[in-house]
């Protein structure tokens, strides 16, 4: 065995920055960082220079200025005297509202379609395959525009509901009118309304707060009751009868609240050329909602199908061998494992639904992009601020949703060995 060569001398030479692996990564990173900073500095310097050339400044003061435009669909109080900041809030809430509705409907359709595509029924599985392939291979904008067209061209005008023998009639026991101006539905109203609380710029509807509080308290009470029943069962082996107690806890408070507030529904009525009273969902919203849901549902269907297929047959066979019924085997063995595969793509689908609500531009639904990134931007001429704020808000929503996904992923992670 030959003697080992002397270890290299410890003194530092400049070439070691490149040839010595200990230093090389550091060199690369420093060079990278310098180049990147130079590039960013170049962008910022250009922006400052350009702003100066156009005689503009960079501030968000315009958010406190009177907006001066109307928004046709608002979830919170808004008039054209409100500020641009308020318009931003209206837009943001509209975006979130639409995203929420679409996520719910897309999940329902997607799960049904995904399960049915695996059905042994030949015709049903083929139909679902056709549905999935057709809808996901055509741009969602086209679906949005198409649904909007169906709503505004094929649906009857409000005047066709008039007369002894109307050409069109309301559906669902004469409560909902589907017209070419939108869908009119019964709306909630409170006789003894509790009014609003104003905290700074935020208005809170006391009625809705009361309803949420009562519901939360009921559910908390119900949980308590179940927990207690469980404890008794563990101790004595006999589960106490709880169904009437839980029914009372869940139902009585909310019914009492209904009477206390004088809650009733206002039905839409034809007055003049249009329907009055109740809630109106404009065509733009219906179009966005249906098109986004039906389109995104195809992706959800595929991940549901993939999730169920990913669970090996052995699992369901083992469950059946244990004597579980088919339905119980599905509920207790297959689904909990499939959820682990299904949920991550499901949540990223929710994320993309939320981002796709910005396509409301195609039909004129007043979402965040149309208020902040549309009218506000055009009126104030603050392109840079508006776009940065808009992207920042979307980014925040995405980061929150991904953070939730990471929490979920961690909670269901398989613990191995």
């Amino acid at each position: 065995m030959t003697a080992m060569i002397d270890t290299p001398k410890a003194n530092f030479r400049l070439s070691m920055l490149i040839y010595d692996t200990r230093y090389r990564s550091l060199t690369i990173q420093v060079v990278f960082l310098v180049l990147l900073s130079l590039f960013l500095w170049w962008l910022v310097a250009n922006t400052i220079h350009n702003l100066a050339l156009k005689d503009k400044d960079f501030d968000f003061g315009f958010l406190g200025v009177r907006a001066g435009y109307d928004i046709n669909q608002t979830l919170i109080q808004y008039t054209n005297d409100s500020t641009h900041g308020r318009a931003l809030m209206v837009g943001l809430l509209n975006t979130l509202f639409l995203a929420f509705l679409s996520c719910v409907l897309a999940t329902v359709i997607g799960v049904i379609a995904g399960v049915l595509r695996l059905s042994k029924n030949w015709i049903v599985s083929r139909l679902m395959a056709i549905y999935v392939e057709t809808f996901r291979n055509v741009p969602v904008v086209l679906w949005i525009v198409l649904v909007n067209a169906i709503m505004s061209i094929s649906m009857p005008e409000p005047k066709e509901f008039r007369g002894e023998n109307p050409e069109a009639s309301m559906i669902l026991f004469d409560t909902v009118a589907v017209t070419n101006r939108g869908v009119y539905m019964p709306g909630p109203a409170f006789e003894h309304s509790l009014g609003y609380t104003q905290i700074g710029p935020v208005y809170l509807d006391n009625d809705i707060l009361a309803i949420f509080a009562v519901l939360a308290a009921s559910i908390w009470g119900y949980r308590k009751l179940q927990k207690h029943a469980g404890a008794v069962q563990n101790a004595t082996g006999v589960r106490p009868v709880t169904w009437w107690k839980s029914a009372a806890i869940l139902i009585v408070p909310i019914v009492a609240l209904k009477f206390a507030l004088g809650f009733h529904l206002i039905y839409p009525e034809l007055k003049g050329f249009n329907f009055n009273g109740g809630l109106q969902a404009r065509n733009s919203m219906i179009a966005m909602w249906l098109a986004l849901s039906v389109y995104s549902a195809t992706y959800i269907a595929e991940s549901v199908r993939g999730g169920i297929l990913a669970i090996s047959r052995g699992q369901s066979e083992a469950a059946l061998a244990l004597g579980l019924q088919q339905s119980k085997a599905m509920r207790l063995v297959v689904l909990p494992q499939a959820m682990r595969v299904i949920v991550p793509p499901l949540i990223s689908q929710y994320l993309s639904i939320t981002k796709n609500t910005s396509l409301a531009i195609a039909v004129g639904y007043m979402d965040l992009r149309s208020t902040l990134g549309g009218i506000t931007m055009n009126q104030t001429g603050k392109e840079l601020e508006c776009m940065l704020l808009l992207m920042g808000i979307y980014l925040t929503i995405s980061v929150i949703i991904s953070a939730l996904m990471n929490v979920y992923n961690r909670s269901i992670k398989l613990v191995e060995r």
Partner: protein
Amino acid sequence: MTSQSYVRTEMVAAQKPPGVQTGIVLWMREKLFSSWLNAALTLVAVYAVYSILATVGPWFYRSVWTGSSLTECRATLAATYGEGVSGACFAVIRERWQQILFGFYPRELYWRPTLTLVLMLVALWPVLFSSAPRGVLWFSAAFPAVAFWLLWGGTVWLPVMILLGFAVGYLAYRLISPLNGLLGAIAAILAPIFWWLFLCGPAAELVQSVISIELRQLKSADFGGFLLSTVIGISGIVFSLPIGVLLALGRQSDLLIVRTVCVAFIEGFRGVPLITLLFVASLLLNYFLPPGTEFDVILRVIIMVTLFSAAYMAEVIRGGLAALPRGQYEAADALGLDYWKAQRLIIMPQALKITIPGIVGQFIGLFKDTTLVSFISLQDPLQLVSSIRANTQWNGVYWEPFLFVGFLFFIFCFSMSRYSMYLENKLKTDHR
């Protein structure tokens, strides 16, 4: 021994199964009516199919293919099938299909995009199917420049000089690397950039003044329809894959700064809707660049779409990298391969293979997303459909052009997804 006559010497022919257990009856019992629930589902499905066909079928059947306006169409319909009957008016597509395909590209120059499409198929051939001759790959490499020249026109020497940039880089590498390997690599990067920034344009002008070969120059405003979608889509696809690979590697890297920057880039681009990025391309880029910089709007859109798609691609590829067993990395290290060789020879081929469905899905999404450019007033197919509908001749026609556009998108996307399945099958090496 005498023969035992009670033992049969030949087999009895097998009996046919009972009638209910063969053929169509069995198939229907198993596939359509195996349980009450299934039977109900079947009936509902049959009813749904029937009601769709009953509405759409006659409308399709009574289609009119000739005529130059909707009124004419309706007159033909009324004459053939009687008053008040609805039918499809596909005459609008027959009349305007060229516009939907090419936008406002000059009619006499339609041969250019068509030729580009044919050449694109040739260029794609060796990329998509390994049975093609490998030599064609050189053509594939040069295709972007060819396509640029054919579509936008102008002097042929500009794309040639741009391609020469790569030769310049190679030359610089060959000349300098014998002296010092690292310097050679740096020169191979800097020389072409220098060439493209300062020498390329003048050189092209010089050669053009000596040997003039040029096509009629077109502006980006002339582009539209599926031509525009395909240009943006294909460029986005071609450029986003390599950038996505680099980003994915950066995100997996041990270098802290590189990793942080890659994560910020990926999450930043994935967190905002594409439409805001397109607005940035059309409104804000003027702020970020030196005053007076003007560059083509299609190019800006391609850059934004590419970056957006690359961020998604990076996540898809990261999934593939994460799915590779640790042993693959260790085996590559054990063989003494350096980082890039290990990536090129061991890691990437496997990671890309298992991410094919994801990558192709991303391509499909990118192609569909090209319709969003209509919101920054580029003439994509949907925008053209609305302008056709706004036209007095065709005012009131609705479904037909949308059907046509939807159908073309479907063909493109569906064939991509089928190709990905074919590729997946072909590359499948596990024998499960």
